[in-house]
């Protein structure tokens, strides 16, 4: 895949993720974050997760809502999949 096509995909996915954080069901930004982090070392993954939490999260929430789950997921996906990306995508 050429750099240009690859970059376009990244931009489109990122845009979908940011819009999804505001107006689409939560599985959309989650799926976008997973797809982006599988292919790219994308800072957008962290930003999308952070945006979801800044809009919808309240620290005084119940059991599920007491942690900024999307920010943590973003960090885990971005850094956790780094060895996988290094192994399969750049060698």
């Amino acid at each position: 895949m050429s750099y240009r096509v690859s970059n376009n995909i990244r931009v489109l996915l990122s845009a979908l993720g940011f819009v999804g954080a505001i107006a689409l069901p939560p599985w959309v930004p989650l799926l976008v974050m997973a797809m982006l982090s599988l292919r790219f070392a994308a800072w957008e993954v962290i930003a999308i997760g952070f945006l979801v939490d800044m809009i919808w999260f309240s620290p005084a929430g119940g059991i599920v809502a007491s942690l900024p789950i999307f920010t943590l997921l973003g960090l885990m996906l971005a850094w956790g999949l780094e060895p996988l990306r290094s192994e399969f995508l750049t060698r």
Partner: protein
Amino acid sequence: MSSYLRNERVKARRRLLIATLVVLLALVFDLASGGMVRGAARVAASAVWSAGSAASGAIFGSGFFSSKRGLEAKIEALQQELTAQQALTGRLEVLERENTQLRAMVNFAKQQRGVAAPIVSSSNSSPYGTFLIGAGTLEGVAEGSIVLAGSEKGFVIGSVAEAGEHISLVREVFAPGALVEGLAGGAVLSLEGRGGGNARTEVPSALALSSGEPVTSTAFAGRVIGIVGSVSSDPGSALARVFVRVPVSLSELQFVYVVPRLE
């Protein structure tokens, strides 16, 4: 590995590291400042949502796409007239729905002091069972205020989790993982929220609960928080599964009524 790829990898990692540090700093600042970053993000998100909502309403409400189909089918005049009528009907339906909800707000206002507020975000985008309303501390909304919708006395759909100046975050009663005690048919139900206005619990099979029965909660001053949707049990099981739902569709709501917690 070529030096170009190696350089790209190093750059990408550096950007990732910077993003991580920025996000962590922003999180710390947000918590230390009592939610300043969250407040700003919500104002921006509600502006984007309102703009998007108005634009999509204008595009789809205008009948533009229907007219195009009509032209392609070469029945221009009649098709356009029909489209215009349909668009008008659609707009009238929207206005009628809005009017019905505002009439309910007027009824609420007669019964109790409170604030009518528009919903300024998507109601199904939050992973935490939350949504935004366009009223805040300057309009008299405070943390813990109860959010009502529906007709007559209304149903509790949530409570204010965070109040900004003009925008507040509402957590649904049945947000995912939320635990709330309800009363139905003389029995106490420990309801576990499932999101989307749904909750479930288990009760002894001998308990006579039927669908449609209202569920109230002392946590919300005895107001109705939902109705029993269905009751099911396996043969021979001592427990029955009870599903409770909010009787209004959150995605169709445009306005809510916010009352102080203690009323």
